[in-house]
């Protein structure tokens, strides 16, 4: 168990009996939640973690096969619930974690009481009769940018090209240390995230859920919010005033209120 808690850098805070499990999105770690946590820690037991490959997780636990689908990440969540013996969890997932939480809840509905999706999208790519917001070329561009911003460290590619592919030496200053995800893992996570299609999974959800849809979110456009509401049984859609893709960071107050009134 301690191995698993170390693997996902699990943090448990707060005083309540009811459990809230917060799952960060792509490109971040559990720190992303810090603007809204205080609103919940007095009433809830709050569980935070980093996916394997993100934040302070155990990079050596990364398994390319396991994490080649979102199901592998959903298993991380189930592992944590099992290890901490969590039941009736209120799950809050940002971005891709919405679908990860949905997959976990489909597999073990008993673990979950309610799901909160912050900026969810069951499919990022446009399809026939479906607006996901992106074309394949957009994603290629994203992967290219990720490559060139390898470890948030793009001063020059030369060392990477000349073979010291392990990135900057220990102690060398990183331009950006926060969210310093392993670049290879981040690349695979991005591919898994943006190329997945979970539209068919929506209908099987048996747990009550909330979709927080931001205004002007280029990652998850409004159409996607409506699609979520329409195809997910028991889903409530809240259209927020907050703009962008990270309301928990840009509009913590509005986000807290929306979550509180749902749970």
């Amino acid at each position, binding site marked *: 168990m301690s191995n698993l808690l170390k693997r996902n850098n699990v943090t448990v805070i707060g005083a309540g009996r009811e459990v809230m499990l917060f799952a960060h*999105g*792509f*490109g*971040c770690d559990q*720190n*992303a939640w*810090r603007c809204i946590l205080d609103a919940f820690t007095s009433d809830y037991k709050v569980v935070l973690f980093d996916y394997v490959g993100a934040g302070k997780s155990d990079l050596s636990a990364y398994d390319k096969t396991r994490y080649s689908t979102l199901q592998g990440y959903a298993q991380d969540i189930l592992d944590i619930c099992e290890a901490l013996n969590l039941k009736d969890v209120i799950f809050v997932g940002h*971005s891709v974690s919405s679908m990860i939480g949905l997959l976990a809840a489909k597999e073990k509905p008993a673990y979950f009481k309610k799901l909160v999706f912050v900026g969810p999208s069951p499919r990022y790519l446009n399809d026939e009769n479906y607006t996901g917001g*992106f*074309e394949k*070329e*957009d*994603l*290629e*561009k*994203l*992967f*290219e*940018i*990720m490559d*060139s*911003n390898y470890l*948030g*460290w*793009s*001063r*020059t*590619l*030369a060392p990477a*090209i*000349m073979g010291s592919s392990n990135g900057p030496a220990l102690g060398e200053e990183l*331009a*950006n*240390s*926060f*969210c310093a995800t392993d670049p290879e893992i981040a690349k695979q996570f991005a591919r898994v995230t*943006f190329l997945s299609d979970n539209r068919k999974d929506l209908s099987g959800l048996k747990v009550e859920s909330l979709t927080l849809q931001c205004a*002007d*979110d*280029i*990652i998850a456009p409004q159409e996607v919010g409506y699609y979520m509401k329409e195809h997910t049984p028991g889903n409530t859609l809240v259209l927020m005033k907050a*703009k*962008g*893709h*990270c309301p928990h*960071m*840009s509009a913590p107050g509005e986000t807290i209120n929306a979550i509180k009134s749902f749970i």
Partner: protein
Amino acid sequence: MKNQLDSSSLELNKEFLASLINTDDLYMNAPCGYLSFHPDGTIIKINRTLCNWLRYDEFDILYKKSFTDLLSKGGAIYYEMVYIPLLKMQGYANEINFDIERADHSSFPALVNAVLLKDKHENIRAINVTIFDITDRKKYEAELLNAKKEADNEKKRFELLADLTPDIIFTATPEGVIEYANQRFYEYFNLSSKNFNQRLVLKRIHPSDKIRCFKQWMNAIMGGSTFETEIRLKNAFGNYIWHLVRAVPYTNDATSVLKFFGSCTNIQEQKELQSKKDEFISVASHELKTPLSSLKGYIQIIKKERTDPLFSNILNRCIKAVNNMQYLVSSLLDVSRIQAGQLSLQIAPASLYNLILECIELTDMNYSSHHIHLIFDVDMDIKVWMDAQRIQQVIINLLSNGIKYSPGAKEVVLRVEKQPHKRAVKISVQDFGIGIPAEEVKHVFEKYYRVKDAANQISGLGIGLYLIKEIIQLHKGNIFIESEINKGSTFYFYLPVAE
């Protein structure tokens, strides 16, 4: 007094320095782009440099465009999902590479630094951004990447080719450490390419070949020269197989070796054929020896009986022909003895002058076309350490060769000189004949080797020089050649003077 002056001049300087700087101008025309935007992305301030880069008028941007409007859609995803969270958590985000889109939808690669400006309640007021155009750097990086890709492809091609050949191929550092070996190499020695240990390979060299191989390899490494040797290598089944091992130094300029390219070719079959041939020659020459002796005896009996001039002349010719044949057969037997390690010499102090005269006399008997010019530049009674019979064989052989290979000349020179500081005499035979091509010089002492152009015109078995070399080496010496095409050749060796 001094302090006063300092402080007043400082005052003056401050004013003066301030007057030098126009911050507006610095901002507007900086060599980088400046931009400020609201937390919601709306651009509220921009400098002229960036406007020029973007090909926008300032008024088309301010309060009309959002920062993400300057990014591709892929860039915008990165901005929303990674960049903004990073910026908010950290307060700044440095050196992130985005492609910035211009008004005409073309784009340039940029390095973007951003910092959050907050009010005293920690609310974000604006984000200040500095943009560097890194088009040139990207170009170099692309070229670098390309060059690396090409080099990698080249390496792959080489390795593919190397794996296709049935030979063992390897490369080694200038110090002799094997750095690459083809698949055949690992198969032959039944080793894994991972955890490769060169010592395991060296252990597979036949014990009798090891020292010779190491010596030659060390010479090649020290001299940066080509390495070539024939050794037995133990294969995966424990059998020793003969291989010709070659390694050629690869240099980028005349001075330093970058690496050695090497190959090991299986010559087991050649070696077996060679030994069969040697065996046949040995048996055949033994079988020929007895009937030749009988023949010579019978001719001599007849010669005693028939003394009339016609018969006498014919019989003399017969005896000469038989002598020639006996000489050939005994040479072949010598070759067999050398191979079997059975040619033993009796080296003792012996007079050189008489021996030399005998050599000239015996050669003259067979060849009347050339004059043998003797230059005997040492004491007449000098004695040297030698097996007199074998040295006679060597000198006669060299003289006969000199005559045979200089059909157009009138003389050969036999020179005996004392070396000033060495206690040795130098014996040389010089001809004025066709000479030996440079590329063949190193082969002329090999068994059965015939110089290509001469082989058709001049008869011989190709064993004379082989025997000479072996005999001189048994005297702990070496035979040397100096040769020039159409000018002639000089063969020489040294013998130690006996006190």
